[in-house]
């Protein structure tokens, strides 16, 4: 039986395949509540990662001709990624569970041999209190690393700490 091919780092030159327009998931005319999702990616010394590739995928709203569901943003010289997208609604979970609105993120960069997967939830959503993944993270401070917070008009901020104090919860999917 063949096994999956091994991952290798995306390296510092992945921008050769970058199309900056991909960071705007509304570029094909998507309907819905338009939001900005942004944040900084920091390393174990708290220094910004300025060469990272952040990818997002959301299963709600469903992907269509007007909404790709997938986006890719570089991090700028201050380590910031930035997406414009449509705010997701609740998503079906396993069994009869319902998941709170969320966006999946994958961080790829030099120094990461594999992508790191996490999620952005939205502060203040009622469903956060019953979301199966959030509830499975016992330590409240760690759970909080997955919650994006309001940061201005229609803007949500979720910082990603790769290592050390305040380290983001990364997911084994």
């Amino acid at each position: 039986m063949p096994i999956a091919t091994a991952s290798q780092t995306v390296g510092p030159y992945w921008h050769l395949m970058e199309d900056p327009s991909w960071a705007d998931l509304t570029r094909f005319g998507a309907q819905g509540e338009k939001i900005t999702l942004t944040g900084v990616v920091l390393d174990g010394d708290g220094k910004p990662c300025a060469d990272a590739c952040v990818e997002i995928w959301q299963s709600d709203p469903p992907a269509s001709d007007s909404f790709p569901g997938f986006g890719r943003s570089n991090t700028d010289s201050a380590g910031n990624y930035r997406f414009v997208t449509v705010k997701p609604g609740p998503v079906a979970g396993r069994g009869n569970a319902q998941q709170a609105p969320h966006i999946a993120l994958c961080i790829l960069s030099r120094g990461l041999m594999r992508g790191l997967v996490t999620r952005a939830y939205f502060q203040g959503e009622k469903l956060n209190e019953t979301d199966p993944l959030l509830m499975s993270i016992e330590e409240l401070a760690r759970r909080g690393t997955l919650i994006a917070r309001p940061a201005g008009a229609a803007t949500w901020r979720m910082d990603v700490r790769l290592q050390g104090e305040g380290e983001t919860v990364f997911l084994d999917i």
Partner: protein
Amino acid sequence: MNDPTSFRPYAPGTQPPYDAPAYLGTVKRHPKQKLHPMPQTITETTGPSFSPSHFPPLVDLTMTTGKPAIGERIIVAGTITDEDGRPVPNTMVEIWQANGSGRYDHPADQHDAPLDPNFHGAGRVFTDEHGGYRFLTIRPGAYPWPNHRNAWRPNHIHFSYFGPAFATRLVTQMYFPGDPLLAFDPIFHAVPDEHARNRLIAAFDLDLTEPDYALGYRFDVVLRGRGATPMEH
């Protein structure tokens, strides 16, 4: 509602760890905490689809300006299958690489080797219905990097794959057979399992090679398979 079928966990030792200290870049970037386990949901078992109409293919990296790039022209082809041997059709593959001198057309690459005005080094192909893909490029050169004294990256091409789901996303590098630098490369050696590591090395293929034109290399890739459950029909 039926639960989505999950993708299988990776076989032990076949994927590199995040903490791979011989590759210095990992030291401050790998998480110290264990990854948090979670069952896959439709967020993980679905993924983006890319159509060639929105994302135009670029299959000949050697002639992007109308003039030939400098270096050894090569053909790279192979198939993308899943862990059950099923082809992965109509999936997008992204490609990027250094030029024949070992220099990326990228502002962060300051290696003192010439840029080639006729080679950018980025491509995009889609697999056919049998999971097959093929593109033309220039064999990339080796280049130095600051990981340790006299560190050189082996010749390699970067690949990005999507497959059917967010959970099948894969970014990797293809190497060339017989490259003496592979023995010293901490990125290649970060994959613990020797067999899994060596599958990152393309095979020279005389059948892919075209007379009087270009050598052919075969690089087959396997993406995660869905776990079989008796509930599925």
